[in-house]
């Protein structure tokens, strides 16, 4: 199976008439750490939302792992690619950290023992063990972000997209986030990160894509 995300000749325009992409194409290798940067309004978040099927392009097609996303539900896309929103609190639903990790799999009827084992492993990896019974919405921003990443990893996605993970984080929190990315690399999970933080990009990027006005103005392998 091809481990690529392909956007072919995409045109996307918001309902208010703002055209973000016109005849836009991009191929991403899902085994690498790719970073997208660019000014506000350049189309970074729109691009990731198109990949995740949250937004539907007016023209063109998007394939993830050789599958056209038109034929996939959000749930099916979520199994393949984990998505961490810019505001992690919008993807936290439960009253405890451990429940946050386990509820989707238990809901789908997976074996409880197996789900708990997986959750314990992620709590340990993302340094969240002490917070297992804490209320997710009362965690710090960095902890929420780590929990959101751990929660999407419960589905064992093949690829991860992070929308501005370094926003509102101080240097020490960015170091913790960097460790998180190292964990992902050790698990052979590729990522696509939207970021403005040059040091962070420099430390992790294997490919840098710069967007401006819905076009790629720089695309280089490191």
């Amino acid at each position, binding site marked *: 199976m091809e481990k690529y995300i392909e956007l072919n000749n995409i045109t996307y325009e918001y309902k208010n008439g703002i055209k973000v992409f016109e005849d836009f194409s991009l191929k991403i290798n899902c085994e690498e750490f790719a970073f997208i940067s660019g000014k506000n309004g350049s189309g970074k978040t729109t691009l990731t939302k198109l990949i995740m099927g949250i937004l539907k392009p007016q023209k063109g097609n998007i394939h993830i792992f050789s599958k056209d996303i038109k034929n996939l539900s959000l749930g099916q896309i979520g199994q393949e690619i984990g998505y961490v929103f810019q505001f992690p609190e919008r*993807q936290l*639903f439960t009253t405890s950290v451990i429940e946050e990790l386990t509820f989707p799999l238990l809901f789908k009827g997976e074996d409880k023992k197996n789900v708990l084992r997986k959750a314990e492993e992620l709590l340990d990896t993302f340094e969240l063990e002490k917070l297992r019974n804490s209320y997710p919405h009362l965690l710090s921003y960095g902890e929420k972000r780590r929990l959101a990443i751990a929660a999407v990893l419960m589905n064992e996605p093949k690829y991860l997209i992070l929308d501005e993970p370094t926003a509102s984080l101080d240097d020490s929190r960015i170091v913790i986030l960097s460790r998180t990315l190292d964990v992902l690399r050790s698990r052979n999970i590729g990522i696509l990160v939207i970021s403005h933080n040059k040091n962070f990009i420099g430390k992790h990027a294997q490919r840098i894509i710069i967007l401006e006005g819905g076009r790629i103005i720089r695309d280089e392998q490191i």
Partner: protein
Amino acid sequence: MNKSKIDPRTKLLLILILSTLAIIYKQLLFLSLIFIISVLIALLMRSNLKSIVIKLKRLLGAIFAIALIQSFFIKAGTPIVKIGNLSLLTDFGIYKSIEFILRLGIIISSCSILTTSTSREIVQALVQLHIPYEIAFMVSIAIRFLPVFKDEMTDMIIAIQLRGIDLKKVKIKNKIRIYRYIFLPIVTNSLIKAKELSVAMEMRGFRAYPHRTSYNILLMSGLDYLIVSMSLVSVAMLIILI
């Protein structure tokens, strides 16, 4: 008629009159007449009825469903659809469901008039109608935060699906559980936001003085007085004649 020329107080009076008439009258003919008048007024005020209808598409579906269910449960009148001795649908049931649809149609179309004013203007109108500023401000905050809650709700529904839960395939019983998961953070976030907002407002001197002054004062124009007097005269005539 320029929408900016009409005072929000005039609009509030029109809404009050139209929705009160919708509740008072039961005859379909009068309800249809009031519905047409309220749609005409909304269009004259340049309210974007089309966009409101699109936004309320799901609610309109629910209204029609309620009307249909209601018509099945009303047993009075001449049966139209019968299974043995059991009458499923009567003419009176259909009459009552149309009455229900017209009533809600009047309320929705008349309330759309208010969308032609900004939330600031509505608050100012309420203040000048001697409603305590705290209550008027609460109304304004509620209006201001509606789009934010809508965005949050949309993101959460997307996020829960991206966690691998296919909402279309989930059974109704489990769907309720899923919506509990979605509503919990929305309530929590609202409480957190409300707390932060109240602190920010206190820091900016909200209610620091017993009396407030306003930079923008609403003034009723001749057109407003004409609309108000015509509305009151029409209502009085309707009450006397019918």
